[in-house]
């Protein structure tokens, strides 16, 4: 029973979603099932918030390693919750928009959360440099091709690329670095990406069929029962 009910739900929902694409009167059914997911996801927020509090309160009460960070997490969680629920500092009343300018909720979001998020995102610049350094070391033939292609594209996207090969006559314009960069992006790169996309599409079809037909049951904890 514990296994058959989820399998039946998966089959019915999967089949309806497929048929809703091809049968116009069923279009709304597909949208309704998507709505069900959203409703379930909203209730799951409580699960997530509850779990966050439980994990960090446990860490705090047992003085586990790095427990002071849990104080910051719990304080931040409760402060934002209170600021949002009670509209603290909101120029409007309790029915006003949560994101009203000047409210404590929006002020904390703009002044603390957004800069912290941007800081994390900015780390990407450094990580791109370190990853590129490793990827572009010409250890073998493939890595060398990658290095050359990357070099052409980098150069082709800068004025230097135009300056260096600007003298190449128009009849051989493909050899101008900016044009070469465009060719690499539009031909080999795009062909490779499309091949991957076709593979992904077929993979999704195959996996969806395994799930709908109940052949793939790992998400239920295996199929040996």
């Amino acid at each position, binding site marked *: 029973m514990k296994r058959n009910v989820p399998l039946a739900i998966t089959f019915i929902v999967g089949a309806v979603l497929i048929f809703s694409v091809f049968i116009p009167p069923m*279009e709304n059914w597909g949208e309704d099932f998507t709505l069900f997911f959203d409703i379930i996801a909203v209730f799951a927020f409580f*699960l997530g918030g509850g779990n966050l509090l439980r994990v960090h309160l446990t860490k705090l009460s047992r003085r586990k390693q790095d427990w002071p960070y849990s104080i910051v997490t719990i304080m931040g969680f409760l402060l934002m919750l209170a600021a949002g629920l009670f509209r603290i500092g909101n120029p409007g009343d309790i029915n006003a928009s949560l994101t009203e300018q000047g409210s404590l909720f929006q002020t904390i979001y703009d002044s603390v959360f957004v800069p*912290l998020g941007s800081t994390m995102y900015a780390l990407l610049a450094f990580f791109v440099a370190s*990853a590129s350094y490793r990827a572009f070391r010409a250890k073998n033939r493939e890595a060398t091709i990658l290095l050359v292609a990357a070099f052409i594209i980098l150069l082709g996207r800068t004025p230097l690329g135009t300056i260096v090969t600007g003298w190449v006559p128009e009849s051989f314009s493909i050899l101008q670095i900016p044009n070469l960069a465009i060719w690499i992006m539009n031909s080999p790169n795009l062909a490779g990406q499309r091949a991957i996309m076709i593979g992904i599409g077929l993979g999704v079809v*195959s996996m969806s069929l395994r799930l709908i037909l109940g052949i793939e049951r790992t998400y239920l904890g295996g199929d040996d029962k």
Partner: protein
Amino acid sequence: MKTIGLFRFLPALTSFSIAFFIIFSPALKAQAPDDSLSTTSPDALAVSIAPPTSLVVFDYKYDDGEALELTWVPSVDDLPVVGKVTGYELYRSDNGGEFYKITELIPGSNNFRDEDLSTGVNYVYYIVALSADARAASVKTEAIQTHREWLNFNLKYLFLIALIISASVIYFIETARRGKKLFVRKIAGLEAVDDAIGQATEMGRSILFIPGINDMDEVQTLAAITILGRVSRVVADYDTKIHMPVSRSLVMTAARETIKASYMAAGRPDAYSDDMVHYVTDEQFGYVAAVDAIMVREKPATIFLLGSFFAESLILAETGNSVGAIQIAGTARPAQLPFFIAACDFTLIGEELFAASAYLSGEPKQLGSLKGQDVGKALAMLVILIAVILATISEIRPLETVRYVLDFLIQVFTIKT
């Protein structure tokens, strides 16, 4: 003298013109198209701009009877930059009732799809061109009803392709079920799973499993959860510690159930703890900060990055690389694949992510589904090859038959909505 003579004839000329207009105006009216400046619409009072013409309404094909499509020729005063028309208003009457405005449209508009309609209702439309000081309405359309279609024939080729691929997947599943041996190529990233978990066990360190940042409605997250089932079974057997911070509450619930079931299947339900999976935050970079901190503090021996990733892919993979963990990554987002390839030890590229669970299970019927995919690939390769050859021929020598076949192929593989 000549001027005076002209003035003498002017009254006669004017009279003649008026007489001509009176006599011939009905004929002129009859010759004018029906959709010229209308006097039937309520808004047809101002005439300082020309109205839109040729307003046509027709049923939107292959829907549930919810939409009508309207097209018209914009007012001749609707010109870019120097045009007088500032926009359009579209009016509708339902079942002979009062006309009411359903939408406003920008200058240059020449079509509109009216949606959320009902079957069995007579709809009549007219459109008004607006200028700063005038309005000019088109004629009304004939009453029209929407029609419900039971099959979307726009998608007939998609249906056919889906049917061929699905049938081949099911055929190979059945073939495998009957005991026929199927060859599946080795996937290095999946071959390394057991070794990676074994290394974490030997080092006495944990395994970190990151299922991407999307929810359970993303097929990549589902793929990650199915792989988690296999990984956690080995983890339970080896008695290794697994840690799984997640960014979605539903993923947390699904992952807990999966790991719990694996521990039970391994005969070690007592070793399972709900704390193995915990929720962090839905916010992308908040989640990244938390996971990076876990990596730096716990220094896991093995990290799985499987699922749907965006800008955080490289931040996570590089941090994992810096703590010296063996990293097995996989995603179906082509834009993130180069980052994983650069920073991780093994990368499951696109379809390999979806094949992972079947591959790791080693079950014939699951492996059969992978063979079914190959039919789809063979079909794709064949069509691409034929289309390339035909396109090349039609460039060199334009033959009508070649062009026809090429257009047909384009039509088959273009999805119309």
